[in-house]
């Protein structure tokens, strides 16, 4: 298998380069115009920030102003995982014994990563941080543990894992529907409750994002019952890691 497509001759490459430099020049011109334009949403966000329940404008945009967007992105994560699982994963995945360095390091790092994730989640209300960052850190912890040979116990890999994987999206929809029931619009938080609701959604979203990313890394669908010793993904809130 050659690295490049054998059908692409020199003339074709030059043509592509020519067209792409035209696109690049056009995009650069757009960037120049945009970087001088005064328009932006920063002022509107700042003006409404005290009704959102959080002090960090990025979190306010993510979970409040554009909450519907974030909800759909959680759905994208879940659908990607379903896609990976339904493709059957990798048949020839081998467990490898980690060296002593990786083994020790992962034992030290995993609790720290979980703590960092919790901190990022909590601080996200008022400073840079939030569910997606914390979830990414959790996912990294899960990937690290998998590389070190640790697997989730069978009792956690069945229904409990699936509940965690769906809790972020599920809780988001439940909160939105609940607000609909008490007379508001979908995901339109009352200012008095907004901070608590956002923290609740973010906590579930963090766990879901972390578990989903770690599960995506593994690729295999864990068995539903406790009978099978399938290679497994991690789930940080029940994690007592014993490789």
């Amino acid at each position, binding site marked *: *298998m*050659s*690295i*490049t*497509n*054998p*059908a*692409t001759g020199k003339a074709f*490459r030059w043509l*592509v*380069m020519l067209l*792409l*430099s035209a*696109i*690049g020049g056009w*995009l*650069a011109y757009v*960037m*120049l115009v*945009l*970087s*001088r334009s*005064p328009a*932006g*949403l*920063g*002022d509107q*966000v*700042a003006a409404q920030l005290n009704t959102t329940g959080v002090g960090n*404008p*990025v979190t*306010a*945009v*993510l979970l409040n*102003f*554009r909450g519907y*967007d*974030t909800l759909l*992105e959680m759905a*994208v*994560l879940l659908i*990607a*995982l379903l*896609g*990976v699982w339904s*493709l*059957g*994963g*990798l*048949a020839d995945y081998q467990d490898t014994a980690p060296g002593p360095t990786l083994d020790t390091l992962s034992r030290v790092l995993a609790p720290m990563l979980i703590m960092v994730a919790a901190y990022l989640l909590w601080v996200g209300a008022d400073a840079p941080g*939030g569910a*997606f*960052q914390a979830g*990414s850190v959790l996912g990294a912890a899960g990937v690290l543990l998998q590389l070190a040979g640790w697997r989730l116990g069978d009792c956690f890999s069945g229904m409990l894992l699936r509940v965690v994987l769906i809790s972020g999206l599920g809780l988001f929809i439940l909160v939105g529907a609940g607000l609909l029931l008490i007379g508001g619009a979908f995901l339109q938080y009352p200012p008095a409750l907004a901070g608590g609701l956002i923290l609740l959604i973010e906590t579930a979203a963090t766990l879901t*994002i972390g578990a*989903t*990313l770690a599960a*995506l*890394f593994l*690729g295999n669908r864990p068995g539903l019952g406790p009978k099978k010793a399938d290679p497994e993904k991690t789930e940080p809130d029940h994690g007592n890691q014993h490789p």
Partner: protein
Amino acid sequence: MSQPFLYALVGVGLFVLGLYALIIHAHLLRKILAINVMGSGVFLMLVALAGRHPDAPPDPVPHAMVITGIVVAVSATALALILMLKVYAVTGQTALDDEKPN
């Protein structure tokens, strides 16, 4: 020439580079990596343009889009990689065949 514009220009460069690799290379892994480079370029453009007013705080809306975009890009890449591995397992090839439809 302002600093955000320079960063946005780097983003444009990454996007164009990724698009070139996406067109030229047949290997599926290279195509997936090329799409990721393109995505990084787009994220860089968004973040750079968010800070285009030096005396005002950065615009939070593009930042929020980038944060979710990164996580979604990671999950889409995972799906693409599994698809590539499945193509390899079935056909023994790491590129899609143009000639025979199967």
